[in-house]
């Protein structure tokens, strides 16, 4: 017997209203009778009619039936029964099915075996597979639309309550919303909500940073709602940000590659404690193209990553960028390691760099981290603030959360080349070069 999980039930819900109604029905007080065995779940649910509705779920293939007049499929009663079964499996077990259940099951078994006996099973299954895929896609679009609906409400609520609330909000405030987005198959949006949690109080201008993050999410919702009217690259950006994945194999086959020597200039690692998923983000820099690229690898728990990349490693290879208005994420078509290394060429001054950033932001307003190599910069201290200064005495702030002292010590007051991320507010240095020497910060 395969038991039903809450996630499965949620994924089956035709809309959010059904799911909400079903969650209320997932309480034994609404049920006249309840039962289950290895093959099925069943129950009689008190409804608006005189007689309770007879609800049943076939566990072998997730077929369901209900005597209620609802046009929704599955109806809230079926979903309610599934949620109830998933939440308290012990209440529902090893019962003998009443006649109305066993008859229904018998009928279904006949139908299925008849179907299996039909000719041309290959075409049939491929057709049904295609149909399944289309149904799944449609279901996902529905889930996503509903998920974004709740996110929109949540954002508006937060504005109504005030940003001050964010500072005192319990962790569950962010986590619950993030979990809801995961359930709605929106991992990208879920990540953005999770990241918001660390913003309040982290810097003097945190309200601005938080507001901008919220505004970006809001823009994402708006963009999704008029997805069809967007130009193709932005459409991809929106879908990728929300959490649709791009098939890497297809991408490699279908897109042009960029040949260059690529230096792994920085690497970060995140681990999700509950799922055990480890995400390794590699920042690459092209020697001739002078372009950045982001290479993301995944692995579970102690499993090794598919490619062994580390900061300071140089690779010669063909890189394929994921589509988007300002392509950054990429994947290797092929590569080999090189013995030699190089110091990447970057922007000669801050005005040139900020100009490039402005262009990139115009193309992709969701660009949160702009990777940049800056040449000939010094690290200066003004009271307790750290500044990065170019050759023309122009200064930008360095993130206080970075390794400022290490960078300052490395420089000794002399100019050097650095790689880091610019988020529009401050620069986060990750790597520096002391002459030819690569120094991870």
């Amino acid at each position, binding site marked *: 017997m395969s038991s039903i999980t809450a996630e499965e039930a949620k994924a089956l819900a035709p809309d959010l209203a059904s799911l909400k109604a079903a969650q209320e029905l997932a309480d034994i007080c609404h049920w006249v009778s309840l039962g289950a065995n290895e093959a099925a779940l069943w129950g009689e649910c008190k409804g608006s009619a005189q007689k309770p509705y007879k609800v049943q779920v076939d566990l072998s293939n997730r077929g369901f039936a209900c005597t209620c007049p609802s046009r929704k499929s599955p109806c809230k009663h079926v979903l309610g029964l599934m949620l109830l079964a998933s939440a308290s499996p012990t209440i529902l077990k090893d019962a003998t099915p009443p006649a109305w259940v066993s008859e229904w099951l018998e009928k279904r078994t006949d139908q299925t075996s008849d179907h299996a006996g039909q000719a041309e099973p290959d075409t049939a299954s491929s057709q049904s597979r295609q149909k399944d895929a289309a149904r799944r896609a449609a279901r996902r679009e529905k889930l996503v639309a509903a998920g974004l609906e709740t996110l929109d409400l949540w954002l508006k609520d937060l504005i109504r309550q005030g940003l001050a609330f964010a500072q005192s909000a319990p962790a569950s405030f962010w986590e619950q919303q993030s979990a809801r987005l995961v359930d709605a198959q929106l991992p990208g949006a879920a990540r953005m909500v999770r990241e918001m949690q660390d913003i309040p109080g982290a810097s003097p201008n945190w309200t601005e940073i938080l507001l901008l993050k919220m505004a970006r999410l809001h823009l994402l919702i708006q963009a999704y709602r008029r997805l069809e009217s967007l130009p193709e690259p932005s459409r991809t950006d929106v879908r990728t940000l929300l959490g649709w994945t791009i098939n890497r194999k297809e991408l490699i086959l279908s897109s042009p590659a960029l040949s260059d020597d690529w230096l792994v200039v920085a690497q970060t690692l995140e681990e999700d404690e509950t799922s055990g998923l480890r995400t390794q983000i590699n920042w690459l820099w092209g020697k001739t193209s002078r372009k950045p690229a982001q290479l993301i690898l995944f692995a579970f728990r102690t499993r090794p990553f598919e490619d062994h990349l580390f900061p300071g490693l140089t690779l010669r290879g063909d890189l394929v960028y994921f589509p988007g208005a300002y392509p950054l994420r990429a994947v290797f078509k092929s590569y080999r390691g090189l013995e030699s290394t190089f110091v990447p060429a970057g922007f000669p001054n801050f005005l040139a760099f900020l100009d490039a950033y402005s262009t990139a932001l115009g193309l992709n307003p969701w660009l949160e981290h702009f990777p940049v190599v800056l040449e000939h910069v010094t690290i200066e*201290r003004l009271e307790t603030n750290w500044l990065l200064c170019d050759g023309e005495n*122009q200064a930008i702030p360095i993130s206080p959360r970075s390794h400022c002292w290490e960078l300052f010590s490395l420089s000794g007051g002399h100019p050097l080349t650095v790689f880091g991320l610019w988020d*529009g507010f401050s620069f986060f240095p990750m790597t520096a070069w002391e002459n030819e020497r690569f120094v991870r910060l």
Partner: protein
Amino acid sequence: MTTLKSLAQSAMLGSTDESLLASAIRVGIAELGGYVPVAFTGERAICGTESRPRMPERAGRLFKRMLEEEMDELLPEFLQGAAERGYIVPPETLPALLSPGRNAWHSLILPVIGERGSWLAAHNPAWDYARKREPLEAWENGTRAERVFALERIRTTDPARGREWVQTCWETDSPEDRAAFLATFAIGLSMDDEPFLEACLDDKRKEVRQAARRLLLRLETSRFVKRMWTRVKLIVRVRSSFLNKGTLEVTLPEELDSAAKRDGVGELALPKKMGEKASRLAQLIALTPPVLWSREFNRSPDRWIAMALTCEWKEPLLLGWQMAAIGTADADWAESLILLWMTQEEAQSFLDMNALSALVPLLRAEKIEGWVTSIEPGVSDTRSTRAIALLEMYHRPWTANLSRWVVKSVQQQSTVFHQRLLQALPGFARWMPPELSDEFSQGWEDEPGSGWNKKIGSFLQILKFRNEIKSSLEEQSS
């Protein structure tokens, strides 16, 4: 004008403006895209050139790993090795190295930070100790810890100047400060310090007198030692005959004269309670360099201890010698007293067991090697059990033979102690010669893997890492 900041302010306590987020994205993206850097007008700090070479690159990488993984127990060895070769550390490691958690190691850290380290320290008050400033300036303006540190530094190069510093402000410094400053005289101590220390015996404060006495005890030709020796020679005498090897006769005076009191007899705290006379005897012995007993009477410490054991005053005699051996870092006496502890069950009651760990580091590595390697298989008497216990307390470099004996004993389970030694193995890895790491990787019954004992694994890991450190520092500096 609407800015992201003004929008954030209006949203701070809640807003019903439905279009606030839409405005925020418009304004926010425009602001970010139009970011303008500010002109820097502050002062610039530039570090001067280094006079000493950076350590080899591999050593620098290992060092960074040690800091990141907080392998602090291996750091002193590394820092010392680097300092001996005149190397300085990579500059990006300085903030972690200078961090306040490593207070006890200032003297190890300073030689390896170079110009960059002092330059950096001048920017952060928490690293003030590493600032390049004249020791005199630190001495005149610093806190007590800084003054002690400055004094320690000057005592290593110019002890007389250090003494002059202390004398100059002797009258105005607090007694606690004076005692702390005197303690630094252990560095570069010589007879030049003797007149000042002798004068300190008349100080009003007990802690100052005690600090002076501890130093004078280590100056064999000091007036203090001469007086003590004259005193004890009258009290402890050897009566020898042809029939026995000699017995000790102790005659204690009823009253202490004022000269003895000035020298500290009666003021020295003992770790054990004793009768008044016994206590006086123990103090007299403890305030006399033990080397005089063996030298002046041409009798080994072992002989003296044997005679003491048959004497009714054995307890104060042995306790006094133990204290004196620790006070003067006398290896011969330490070895004989440890041997007594190893061979005599009742020695526990004569010696100060709490101070045993102060006696053990005085032992010569060869001595421990001799004691331990002569343990026979299957024997677990007091002597061998205690010899093994010494290993666990001996936090100094071991000889190759001793290391080999211990590893073989675990590998071949050749002594009854192999389990105990196995448990202690990771701790031993710090003291064995690191170049033996390859040799010690061989000869284990299990292969590394599931059945592999964790203790052996971490033992080899530490030893191999130390070997890496050593060889990396021996590479040519780039």
